[in-house]
């Protein structure tokens, strides 16, 4: 199936999950990555169970924060 990852069309196996996509895309420091699917943010606890569908638009965002 085709999904859009960070603006690029990619071919992925049917049934791939968010966690599987993170692995397939070799995302660095995945524990600090926020994921949105079709502009909805996915809880990190759901990465392994959230199955992606044809045409989904996925974004990986690094949490951006800090302190003095």
């Amino acid at each position, binding site marked *: 199936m085709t999904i859009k990852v960070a603006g690029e069309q990619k071919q992925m196996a049917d049934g791939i999950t968010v966690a599987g996509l993170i692995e397939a895309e070799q995302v660095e420091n995945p524990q600090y990555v926020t994921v949105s699917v079709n502009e909805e943010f996915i809880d990190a606890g759901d990465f392994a169970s959230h199955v992606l569908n044809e045409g989904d638009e996925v974004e990986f*965002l*690094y949490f*951006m924060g*800090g302190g*003095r």
Partner: protein
Amino acid sequence: MSLSTKEARGLVKITIKKEDYDKIVAHALKERPDEACGLIAGRDRDDGVREVVKVYFLTNIDHTNEHFSIDPKEQLAAVRDMRAQGLKPLGNWHSHPETPARPSEEDLRLSNDKNASYLILSLAVKGHPVLNGFHVEGEQGERQARKEEIEIIGG
């Protein structure tokens, strides 16, 4: 002799337009006592200059003078705007209302993108804002900040 990090990254310096710098300072002053924050986007030129083309002013959802977290919804919108404009995400910026323009331990802990430039604006000395740029090296717990030269152009 090994290459310095700056050479290894191929980065000579960061340039930012004076008008954008002034907007960052104005926004950070307006947001005091809270830390202000946002993103920077632009291009990495062949001559090693990281050129900031656009600055995004985003919400610090922590609303404190001790910490910042960029609103993820605004971050997502900004990233899409960058893509639409053909700009590369270059990193982020935030203010230190009361402390120097150097990364804190918390800044280092949360600097998870090794390719990013992290700009810090200090407002600690009234009337004399200081903007410094850094990138991070090393793994969590052993991270170190390396300074990046900033040139404010125009104005």
